[in-house]
């Protein structure tokens, strides 16, 4: 049976940004159903679905919700992570642009389940248009009794606000985001305490990615069993958005049951750009290890990618053809992590800087035979030694350069890049 899109089913449908149009397309049945259930039963349903976080770490969503303490001594919050700054990722933008009510519905169900009366959607500052679309959709939801003092006539009170960031990758890290929301530099916090206990404004807080929350209405409406029937196995369930970029003919956001392969994605994207051959791909955004083409038939799910030494991450699939210089590609990513390190932790601040410098030196034709080992040493010093996972993210592509593409780095070190054309960056003929 052909797979019917779930998360993207409303793309291109006129009027769905408003409550009326969204309802006509079948929306708000999940929230209606949830409001008729006990909050704990909603959490159980989401747990049973196997839904894992789509923001990067793949943490089970229902389990996260169950960590929120019961009782009313403190307000509780949901902060929706719409920071979407992992290079290669653009699925949350599509979800917010095309179907903002779906996100509002998912947020509302989560709030009901954990008894939160306030939800902030923290959206990256560059998404100006998307923030306006969300504001407009939220206004319409208030006007139609979906938000406000009496959510769908249930007596449940829920306020929802859009909060714009101001340009910083680290604010996608959940505690960096909380600091930013509270009006500070986005420097991650020490954990524990975890946000479920001490989160936004010192109160219990759920943080979930946009795509994670967009799955929730469908789980409630159609049931955990239906949801679980999609995907590779019981640890990798549900539909998944893959953002394909780089050297394919038609880059874009594509929805598949979790566990599609690189080769299937390339086919869906109209093949490789100008018919070139696949050399390598990054399956899960800039933080994921780069895999060589031989993994193109691997199901892209949480566990199979972890086994292959990479990760599903944000499912940002960056495709690189045979003309790509992997050392240059990793240097660009190292530059990104250096720029985005918040500077709190020494291993990250220094490690991201040194890794960029070493790669720059290699690309200047001044590499030494020990540089591959030097890169691995920098990785060892950065990995697992910091407050947040940005340093581990920086290690992903770095280590994979040495481990999966030793010949590329050796070519630069042995002959100083002789033969590599210095300015033409990645593709033989870059533009038409």
């Amino acid at each position, binding site marked *: 049976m052909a797979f019917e899109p779930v998360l993207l089913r409303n793309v291109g449908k006129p009027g769905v940004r408003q409550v009326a149009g969204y309802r006509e397309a079948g929306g708000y049945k999940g929230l209606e159903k949830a409001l008729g259930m006990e909050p704990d039963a909603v959490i159980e349903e989401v747990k049973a679905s196997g839904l894992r976080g789509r923001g990067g770490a793949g943490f089970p969503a229902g389990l996260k919700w169950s960590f929120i303490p019961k009782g009313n001594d403190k*307000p509780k919050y949901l902060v929706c992570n719409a920071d*979407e*700054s*992992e*290079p*290669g*990722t*653009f699925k*949350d*933008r599509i979800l917010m642009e095309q179907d903002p009510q779906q996100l509002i519905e998912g947020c509302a169900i989560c709030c009901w389940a954990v008894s939160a009366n306030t939800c902030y959607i923290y959206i*990256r*500052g*560059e*998404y*100006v*248009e998307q923030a306006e679309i969300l504001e407009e959709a939220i206004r319409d939801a208030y006007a139609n009794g979906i938000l406000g003092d009496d959510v769908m006539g249930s007596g449940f009170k829920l*306020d929802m*606000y859009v*909060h*714009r960031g*101001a*340009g*910083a*990758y680290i604010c996608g890290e959940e505690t960096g985001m909380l600091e*930013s*929301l*509270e*009006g*500070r*530099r*986005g420097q991650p916090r020490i954990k524990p305490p975890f946000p479920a206990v001490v989160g936004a*404004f010192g109160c219990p807080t759920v943080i979930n990615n946009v795509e994670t929350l967009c799955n929730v209405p469908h789980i409630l409406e159609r049931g955990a069993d239906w949801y679980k029937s999609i995907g590779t196995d019981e640890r990798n369930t549900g539909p998944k958005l893959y*953002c*394909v*970029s*780089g*050297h394919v003919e038609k*880059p*874009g*956001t594509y929805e598949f049951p979790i566990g599609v392969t690189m080769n299937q994605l390339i086919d869906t994207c109209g093949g490789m750009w100008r018919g070139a051959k696949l050399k390598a791909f*990054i399956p899960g955004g*800039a933080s994921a290890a780069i895999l060589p083409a031989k993994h193109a038939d691997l199901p892209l799910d949480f566990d199979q990618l972890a086994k292959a030494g990479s990760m599903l991450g944000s499912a*940002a699939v*960056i495709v*690189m053809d045979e003309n*790509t210089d992997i050392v240059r*590609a990793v240097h*660009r*990513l190292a530059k*990104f992590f250096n*720029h*985005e390190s*918040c500077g709190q932790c020494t291993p990250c601040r220094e490690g991201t800087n040194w890794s960029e410098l070493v790669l720059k030196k290699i690309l200047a034709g001044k590499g030494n035979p020990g540089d591959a080992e030097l890169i691995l040493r920098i990785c060892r010093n950065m990995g697992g030694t910091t407050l947040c996972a940005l340093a581990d993210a920086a290690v992903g592509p770095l280590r994979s350069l040495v481990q999966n593409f030793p010949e590329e780095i050796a070519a630069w070190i042995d002959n100083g890049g002789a033969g590599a054309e210095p*300015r033409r*960056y*990645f*593709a033989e003929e*870059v*533009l*038409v």
Partner: protein
Amino acid sequence: MSEASEPRLPEEIREAIDALRPRYPTEEALLLPALHMAQRHWDGWLPDEAIAAVAHELNLTPAKVYGVVTFYDLYHQNPVGRHRLRVCTNLPCALRGAEEVLDSLRSHLQVDEDEVTADGKCSFVHFECLGACEQAPMMMVDDDYHAHLTPESVRRIVEELD
């Protein structure tokens, strides 16, 4: 300095900030929204007087506000052009020729990154992934995204700005 000459936010921004107050349990949380508004008012950047005005409005020290301003890429501490161009050069865009687009823009504008053209019209920077890699190579002009750039089209887009 006397009380009266100290920088203050214009009335309409103070009202807009007041309208947001019920959304947050703390005053400090209004800082990012307030800085966005102030930057719009001060022609796209945040001079010392803007920082002082925001600090006063939210009962924060200027040092604290300054610390936040320096953390985020979208806040500027130096004058910018009437139009701000942010060219994405992260990997997915680079794979489709972003460096060549940036070179073309630089030689066309005859200024370097973060400098303002003599007529005050433009300033540009390279930028990290803007979340639109399917449109690569792409850039942001003020608040708008421009897709599928070429070294030629980027010059044309600049020419068409007022």
